[in-house]
């Protein structure tokens, strides 16, 4: 039996992605020079160039999907952690402490759950001054026994 848990990252925020690309590289032209002229074979650079080029294209788009092709992730998704994920999607939480208060749980358990979810790429802790702001990276989870991994992207 194969259990597949998939999470949709939702429509990609192009602005956020562009900011991340600018942070990783010196600029689009420098990256283009690196991968086209320098024949760079670094996987991150080539993939980033393809994504960046699409985002610069008028009407270009980026779609994302996260798939867990292993049942191991189910062990991580306890009812309390699902509740935590749901809350993070509903409200903007500025810190782990604030999240713990909203969930009526203690700080340490909340932090431990964020670390466990972060190990599977479901949440991210963004450093903001003294605080770490928890952000959910998925909009929903879907458990399926259908083999949809690698399915063709939806038609434009």
């Amino acid at each position, binding site marked *: 039996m194969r259990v597949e848990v998939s999470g949709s990252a939702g429509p990609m925020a192009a602005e956020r992605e562009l900011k991340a690309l600018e942070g990783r590289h010196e600029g689009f032209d420098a990256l283009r020079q690196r991968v086209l002229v320098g024949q760079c*074979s670094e*996987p991150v650079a080539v993939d980033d160039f*393809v994504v960046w080029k699409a985002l610069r294209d008028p009407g*270009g788009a980026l*779609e994302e999907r996260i*798939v867990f092709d*292993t049942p191991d992730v189910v062990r991580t998704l306890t009812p309390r952690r699902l509740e935590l994920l749901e809350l993070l999607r509903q409200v903007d939480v500025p810190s782990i402490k604030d999240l713990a208060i909203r969930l009526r749980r203690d700080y340490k358990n909340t932090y431990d759950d964020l670390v466990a979810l972060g190990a599977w790429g479901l949440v991210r802790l963004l450093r903001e001054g003294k605080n770490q702001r928890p952000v959910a990276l998925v909009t929903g989870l879907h458990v399926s026994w259908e083999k949809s991994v*690698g399915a063709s*992207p939806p038609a434009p």
Partner: protein
Amino acid sequence: MVRVFRQRIWVRRDEVLDAVEAFDGPRRTFYSYTFRTLRAGTWIPAVRWDNWEGLDHVDRFDERGILRDRGPWRDRPLPDVLKLVKAFRRNLPTMDLKEL
């Protein structure tokens, strides 16, 4: 209009297959499938199949993520590559990939 479809497929907690595919209308203009393993908190590429520069090929990387060698590869769909990754996992970098 170029659309890019990016997927991260978790095979295990410390192994992922990252897929990037670019489409110009219905035509797929670029694909890359990168099998990465987690080492000391960093995702290190182990094997990568792609058609960068218009040529289907497979790259093998060493433990530091440095390109070790490059060989020919016949384009196959993502589900086939995922099957390979799940079957051979960390042994992939030591295998003759063009025969698979």
